[in-house]
């Protein structure tokens, strides 16, 4: 059976309530994002054993590691390239990695400079301090070179 104005009730309801978009801001304030939403990983320094599993399993190659024969080393994360899959957390043998819960983080992650935005996840032993600063400047320099190459290639 065909009728007309089946959605009349809906229309009247909306007429009384006003536009849905009016309530959006209050609704966001009332319902914050869930506690275990996915963002970038963090490493607990005391637990990390510098085994390099997170580097091997990362699908986007966004984690870089530099280390010596012992437990000394550092791990860098290329933030904009991380797709928040959580593989590093799943496969970490010592449960050293957890996912960050900071709700403001998603704002700071809107970066398109994908060759320079590095973040230190962990630094241990002799790799702390000046060595880490040197490494960061190296990484940024390498990223800058890469951007230049791409720009030259595009013409």
């Amino acid at each position: 059976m065909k009728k007309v104005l089946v959605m009349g009730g809906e229309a009247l309801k909306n007429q009384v309530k006003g536009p849905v978009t009016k309530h959006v801001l209050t609704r966001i304030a009332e319902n914050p994002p869930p506690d275990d939403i996915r963002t970038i990983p963090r490493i607990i320094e005391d637990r990390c054993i510098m085994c390099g599993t997170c580097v091997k399993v990362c699908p986007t190659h966004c984690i870089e590691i530099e280390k010596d024969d012992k437990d000394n080393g550092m791990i860098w994360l290329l933030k904009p390239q991380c797709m928040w899959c959580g593989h590093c957390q799943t496969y970490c043998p010592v449960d050293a990695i957890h996912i960050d819960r900071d709700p403001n983080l998603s704002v700071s992650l809107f970066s398109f400079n994908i060759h320079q935005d590095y973040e230190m996840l962990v630094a241990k032993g002799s790799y702390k301090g000046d060595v880490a600063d040197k490494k960061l400047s190296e990484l940024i320099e390498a990223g800058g070179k890469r951007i230049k190459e791409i720009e030259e290639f595009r013409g």
Partner: protein
Amino acid sequence: MTEQYRSRFRTLTDGSDAPPGADHHIFIGPQHPWAEEPAHFIIHLKGERVVEADIRIGFNLRGMEKAMENKTWRQNTMLIPRACGICSAVHQNVYVRVVDKLAGVEDQISERARLIRMFSLEAERIHSHILWYGILAHDAGFDTMLHVTWRDREIIMDIVEDISGNRVNPALMLPGGVKRDIPKEKADRAQPMLDKLIKQVKYHRKVFTEEASIRNRLENVGILTKEEAKKVTPNGPTGRGSGLPFDVRKATPYELYDKIDWNMVYYNEGDILATTLVRLDETLESLQICKQVLDQLESTQGELLARVKQRIPEGSYFARAEAPRGEDVHYAIADGTDKPDRYKIRAPSLGNIDATLRRMDGEYVADMPVILRSYDPCFSCTNRVMIINEVTGEKMILNQDEFARKAIKAKKYNRPFF
């Protein structure tokens, strides 16, 4: 035999190849305001009626299968859901089942992990179907329905976000089990939301079956009869709307679909309204499955993740699943290393193209958007074959039948392929 299979890919450069009787040709796509997906349609008209329709695909080949050969099995778990924007969980499900079988850990996966996988699959089917019939209403010129359906779709998106941490791409599955648990408080939070959504979907069904303005656009439009459907073998809801009762979940049950109480939906009419009703009823059925799964999760315990080694032993396996759009088929060859030797994806949209072109014959050109939308086009995941003659530069796009016939002839008479 050969006359049944007409050549779809006509060239119109000199006009000689046009189908007899056609006086106008309309080109749609690959970039077109109507279509979100890159496909090129050529519609041959006589007056306002369609004589014949052609399609060309292949504008969005991303080389994903090749990329998978350069990544490890573990990394590929997170690459494979990117095959499709909407049905990401089902691609991941087929992939992890392939890896489970090849690694030999099939029996170690607990019931709880399988239930969580099923919840993810069914939640995806719900939001995909709601999205589809919203866009269908938009194409039929009934924009109010688009906004109402997409408003209600947010309920299931919130549930998926709560459970997996992502809205569209839940990425819950891993070889050997699942990544995250569904604790009791989350299940309790989801149950009343599912009840609310059931009420809303019943209301959507009432609108689609009773409201005259939408029903007139869908009823008796683009009819694909059962006899024709058997020739062009559509799969998924397109086939079930034409009276082909085939569902992979019933035919070869995977995960725990044989232990859950659910019915397969199919209609015999074959018009666009029938495919719409198949999807609406399936949404209700999936919501019911979701509620059952959450009930069973309370009493089921088990290890979430079984250990799978990095290196997958030599072998090959073929698995399939019922995606929201149809039958999704994966085939993998492992060579004993930690990377796949070859991985093949056959996405559901490819199987439904021929059936959709059949629907257009003799219809009005005004009904084209609705008919084109009817099989839920998704070309970013559809793959195809193009053969290029190196000597002459001639290009041929072949379907499976033509390709097989040419290959058999070439082998039998020891001739070159072309």
